[in-house]
């Protein structure tokens, strides 16, 4: 089929904005050609997501001159100036897919279930487990309060405990949860636990819910089998959740492939980059309500969603979780905390506004740093050493995971950070996006930084599921903006101590220098590969071990090469005035903001 596809129309219905892109085959290469955007319309008075979709497509029609719509129908036979070959869409509108998961042991089957749900693009509202120390009635109350869209019930290895799993089912039966999507909606429950308990689960739940049984998510202690559950979540997302959301019934009839949850689609493209380039990747998508973090280390994919860390709807939650002091430390001008918190809160209640003044922009980017930092902390705590699908684990691995579960996110081994979402993709200067990513993720050693140019990873993610070539060509040529490389030493040192020296050849010119503790320096280096030698001082580690010199090639980019000597983690001056000077200097050195008039 793929050889016949020349024109692709893809939309992403976000919680705030619906984005449409047009991809065309030009000179045997797939390229992004036009982009349109319109407010998402799942709210009164419209309550029909297709209105926003149509408006975004109309914008593409106007810009491209291509006729795509015939009234409210997408023309799907192409000529030189009319129609598209394929129309696809992703969605996180309507609050996305909200799930509860359950397992017998929270850190074992409970976590496997959580991983399956997150991997499918869901928001996990709670993990119900036999050992979660909550009383029976507390669990029942919790289910009733949360009203999930779907429940993934797992627990027990095959041949293991039956009674504990059935007890979980009985809790669900007792709660008899009413989903948020309508009074007649039968709650879908996916059972992915001990196969010996399937009959009992069926007897317990079949009369009150829509029960679907799939193979065990954890058939043995050493194996995790996430795919059947993940696939079923995708199917049910389409059949149940989407069908209930306003206008989605219509939208599902328009698309040529099933609609995917936005985070699930972003995960697809992150996985593909890591696989094809053979690199470790951390991706982040910071939205208005939530922040998703994706990582691939040693072929293991993990996704977390920080449900209440975002830049508009949940911006005050970022303020509350991070604390005013942690937000203020990034603001390079004097502002009292009452004024600061009022401004942030006003963004929460009018989420679609944009910063007109430079001060407001700096405040939003300070908040973004904290939202990204907190989301990444959560990700590192979740991405632990449990192996992925059908991978054999040794008994020692099992015990290690039970004991603690070491994070598999190793910053020294991280090759690429990709940022996406309005605050990163639409930052007026690319240097701002690079600084936000460096300041919040604190890469160690040598790490390449990139952003999604115009926030189109979701559309490319769904495209990659049936046309990998088109998705990757557009991803590399039009989506991924390589900002440059960050080089930073590990640990913390006394201010002004010399950390490392560098020698880099840019445009046949040798540039040499040294970096001191507390210093941030930017060297402009357009996108290309550059030969560099980095020589650490005694006992300093630049990612290859203490005292180890690095000689090799690194990437430049739209911003350039950032040498970061501020330590891991960054030390801020405790004196207010001095701190403002400190962060102002970092800003000036990285060409972050225009000079204030």
């Amino acid at each position, binding site marked *: 089929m793929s050889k016949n596809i020349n024109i692709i129309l893809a939309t992403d219905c976000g*919680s705030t904005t619906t984005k449409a892109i047009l991809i065309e085959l030009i000179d045997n290469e797939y390229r992004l050609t036009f982009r349109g955007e319109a407010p998402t319309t799942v*709210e009164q008075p419209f309550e029909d997501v297709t209105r926003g979709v149509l408006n975004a497509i109309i914008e593409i029609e106007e810009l491209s001159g291509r006729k795509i719509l015939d009234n409210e129908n997408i023309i799907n036979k192409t000529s030189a100036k009319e129609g598209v070959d394929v129309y696809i869409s992703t969605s996180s*509108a309507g609050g996305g897919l909200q799930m509860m998961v359950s397992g017998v042991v929270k850190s074992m089957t409970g976590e496997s279930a959580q991983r399956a749900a997150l991997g499918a693009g869901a928001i996990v509202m709670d993990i119900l487990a036999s050992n979660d120390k909550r009383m029976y*009635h507390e669990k029942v109350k919790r289910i009733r309060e949360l009203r999930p869209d779907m429940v993934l019930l797992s627990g027990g290895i095959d041949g293991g405990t039956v009674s504990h799993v*059935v007890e979980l089912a009985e809790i669900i039966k007792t709660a008899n949860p009413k989903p948020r999507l309508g009074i007649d909606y039968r709650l879908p429950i996916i059972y992915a636990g001990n196969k010996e308990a399937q009959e009992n689960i069926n007897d317990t739940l079949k009369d009150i819910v829509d029960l679907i049984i799939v193979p065990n998510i954890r058939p043995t202690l050493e194996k995790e089998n996430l795919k059947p559950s993940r696939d079923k979540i995708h199917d049910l997302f389409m059949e149940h959740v989407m069908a209930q959301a306003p206008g989605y019934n219509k939208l599902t009839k328009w698309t040529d492939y099933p609609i995917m949850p936005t985070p699930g689609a972003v995960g697809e493209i992150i996985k593909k980059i890591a696989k094809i380039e053979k690199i470790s990747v951390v991706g982040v998508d910071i939205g208005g309500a939530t922040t998703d973090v994706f990582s691939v280390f040693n072929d293991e994919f993990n996704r977390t969603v920080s449900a209440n860390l975002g830049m508009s709807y949940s911006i*005050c939650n970022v303020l509350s979780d991070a604390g005013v002091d942690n937000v203020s430390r990034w603001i390079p001008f004097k502002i009292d905390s009452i004024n600061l918190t009022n401004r942030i809160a*006003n963004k929460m209640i009018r989420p*679609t506004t944009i910063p007109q*003044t430079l001060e407001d922009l700096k405040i939003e980017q300070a908040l973004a740093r904290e939202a990204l930092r907190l989301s990444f902390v959560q990700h590192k705590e979740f991405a632990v050493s449990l192996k992925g699908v059908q991978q054999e684990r040794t008994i020692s691995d099992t015990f290690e995971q039970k004991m603690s579960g070491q994070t598999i996110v190793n910053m020294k081994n991280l090759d690429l950070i990709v940022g996406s979402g309005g605050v990163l993709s639409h930052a007026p200067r690319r240097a701002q996006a690079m600084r936000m990513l460096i300041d919040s993720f604190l890469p160690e050693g040598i790490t390449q930084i990139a952003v999604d140019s115009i926030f189109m990873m979701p559309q490319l993610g769904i495209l990659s599921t049936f046309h990998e070539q088109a998705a990757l060509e557009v991803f590399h040529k039009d989506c991924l903006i390589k900002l440059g490389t960050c080089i930073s030493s590990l640990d913390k040192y006394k201010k002004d101590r010399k950390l490392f020296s560098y020698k880099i050849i840019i445009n046949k010119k040798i540039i040499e220098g040294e970096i001191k503790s507390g210093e941030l320096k930017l060297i402009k280096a357009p996108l290309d590969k550059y030969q560099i030698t980095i020589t650490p001082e005694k006992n300093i580690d630049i990612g290859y071990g203490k005292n180890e010199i690095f000689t090799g090639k690194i990437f430049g980019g739209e911003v350039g090469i950032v040498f970061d000597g501020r330590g891991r983690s960054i030390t801020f001056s405790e004196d207010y005035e001095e701190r403002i000077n400190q962060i102002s200097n970092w800003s000036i050195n990285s060409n972050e903001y225009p000079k204030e008039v």
Partner: protein
Amino acid sequence: MSKSYTPGLKILRNTKISKERLLPLRGDVHVSKDLIVNSDTIVASTEIPGNVQMINIANKLNIDAEQILDCVVVKVGDSIIKNQLIAESKGLFGMFKSEVRSPIDGKIINASKITGQIVIAEKPLPINVDAYIPGIIKDIFPKEGVIIDSIGTFVQGIIGIGGEKKGTLEILTDSPSSMINMEMINNDYKDKIIVCGTSINYDFYEKAKKIGVKGIVCGGINYNSVSKILGYSLGVAITGTEKTTTLILTEGFGEINMAQRTFDILLQNNGKKVSINGATQIRAGVLRPEIFIESKKIYENDNFKEDDLIISEGSTIRIIREPYFGQIGQIISLPYELVKMKSETMVRVAEIKFENGNIEIIPRANLEVILSN
């Protein structure tokens, strides 16, 4: 042409509003179509399941889980009282029996031979849904609730806390910029819904709450004061369940005066019975706090139209972000080209003429249409 929508809060006189009054679970509807109701009329009711208690019969009687059905002396669905015998073991030759008694009044809702447990639910909790606004029953959803139609003044706020309240409207000041002080509020305002044109502070709110004021409508309040009132920081704007004096902000956080237009419309309804709801949900399916006052006039305002949200030259708008936050002006042009702001953000803009005659360029995203008749 693609359409450029802006958010907009409604400030409408003699408008028709429809309110769905629905039960959280299926139940009984007590009114019929075309019946005229007042705001206190109970239109539907149901019961929500009570809390549950689980008793592990197998453990208590020291038997296997699969044997419990032989020992349980009550059936699923039976109502029981506290201390009633619910299970007993067979004992040895009829002697040395062990027994289990109910710890609560309730109903048996499950007995499982897999887990060996029985589950008892406490008495269901009654839920009544009132009309909230006076009006006429327009439609009935059998077992679910009703739609009530009414005509009156309808004003939306930007954010609120606290749920539905009804009371008499009392305006405290003669203009939206008149300062308020603690002395202005006394026991006379018990059960009233008061309007302060300007912003209020934490102490004022607390005094009003102590007196028994049912609701406060004002221009603004500091975010930190709201956190202090709630006892926690408001992380996402999803409110309405707080058990406190309902507070509705018409403008936003900070020391902001109420828009003149909003103040005037409330002033005209001074002393009338009003229904307010602070419930706010700023996410998909956005819900804003509201104030409704019934009027006997025939409605003059057509139902809300999508086109009302489209801005064009001549539209009256309010700025909803710094640096001109709160100011009202008129659109004099809508340039097509993107314009670079001081923040260097490239945005679609509107050229606005303020009431003082000044002209400024403002991002379209920072404008709010005033939907007013």
